Every structure is written in structure tokens, then in C-alpha cells.
């Protein structure tokens, strides 16, 4: 039987981590500069920054890549340091809910802009 909280998809997750790393290394500096160059802003300017659909889509895609990247990293950390299976599975769940919740909250925030 496979170990419930073990690593049996090593190459796939390794590849996901590297692919998302490349995407983030390209996307985050661009998004970061887009925001930093707009500073200082007032509320109207701040909202206008996130108004274009391209900006919203780029932010949510970057957040999705970040969530996948962080999932692999946190999973590695938990596999290394948390031995009891039940505790590790509960922490996996906490990580997944945090990451999926953050991406969903970001999308909801950006698409609720008037």
C-alpha cells in the first residue's frame, strides 16, 4: 500500500515547482513594477490600476501559479518535518484551504470592482 501522506509523484511535482518558478520569475517583477511605478496613488488611481481586464487576469493567473508553487514547497517542508500522518494531512488541508482561499478571494476582489 502507498503511504497516505508520502511522496509518490516526485517528478511531476518537481516539474510543477520549476515551471511555476519560471512563470513567477517573469510575471511578478512585471506586475510589481506596474504597481510600484504608479506610486504614490490616491484611491481613484489605485482602483484604476486594477480596472483593465488584462491586469485582473494577469493577477489571478500569477496567484494561481503562486498557489501551485507554494503547495509543492509547503508539501516538501511538511513531509520533511511533520512525521505523524494525521497531523501532516491536517496541515496539508490548512495549506490547501489557505492557498485556494487566497486565489478565490483575489479573483472575487478584482471582479467586484465597479
Amino acid at each position, binding site marked *: 500500500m502507498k503511504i497516505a501522506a508520502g511522496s509518490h509523484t516526485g517528478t511531476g511535482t518537481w516539474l510543477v515547482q*520549476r515551471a511555476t518558478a519560471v512563470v513567477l520569475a517573469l510575471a511578478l517583477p512585471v506586475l510589481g513594477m506596474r504597481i510600484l511605478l504608479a506610486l504614490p496613488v490616491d484611491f481613484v488611481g489605485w482602483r484604476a490600476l486594477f480596472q483593465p481586464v488584462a491586469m485582473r487576469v494577469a493577477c489571478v493567473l500569477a496567484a494561481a501559479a503562486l498557489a501551485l508553487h507554494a503547495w509543492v514547497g509547503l508539501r516538501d517542508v511538511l513531509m520533511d518535518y511533520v512525521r505523524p500522518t494525521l497531523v501532516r494531512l491536517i496541515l496539508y488541508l490548512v495549506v490547501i484551504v489557505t492557498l485556494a482561499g487566497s486565489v478565490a478571494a*483575489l479573483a472575487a476582489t478584482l471582479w467586484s470592482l465597479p
Partner: protein
Amino acid sequence: MKPAARPVDFNPLRIRLPVTAWVSLLHRVSGVLLFAALPMGVAALSVSLADAGGFQRAAGWFGHPLGKFALLGWTWAFAHHFFAGLRHLALDLHWGSSLADARRSSIAVLVVSAMVTLAVAWRLLR
């Protein structure tokens, strides 16, 4: 005959880790910190975009000394993770994987992320 007991000691405060190991360790630490900061960042963005009052409140958080300190900690974590990550990708392609090169690039990661953090500190605190 019983084999001699090997010293097994992974306390990083007692053993002298090479600089490459420190960069690797800090890559993990910074990654976990960035993970912890993500939901807070999304929450702050959400508040700042909701209405003019929320924007003022969020601006207040990042104007507070504690907020600036958090922002500075985030800056170091991001810079270290970013540059250590680029180094990792290079090593995957067998670029700079000799011991001497790996030591040099580790030192470069520490120096560059410290410089980025100092530059942001100067901008935030002056």
C-alpha cells in the same frame, strides 16, 4: 564489536554550515514566510480596493512602523527567495554547479537580497 557511535548533530547553531547550506535553509524559511504573508496581502488589497475609507485604512497599516517593519521583512523574504530560486534554476541546468561557483553564487544571493532590503529600508524609513 559494536561500531563507534557516530556524532549525529543537526543543530544548526552547533554545527558550522557552509554558506550554500545557509542559502538553502533561508530559501525554505523565506518560502514559508511568503506563504504566511499571502492571505494577509490579499486581505489588505481587498480592503484597499473596497472604498475610499478602506484605502485610507490600508495606507495607514503600511504607514505604521510595525507595518513598515512587516513590509521590510516581506521584502527580504521575497528578494532572497527570488534570487535563491534563480540560482536553483541555474543549478538545474548545471550552470555554476562546481563547488567554487556554488559558493560564489550563494554569497551573491545573500549580498544582493541584503542590498535590495537596505534600498527598500532607506526608501521606507527616511
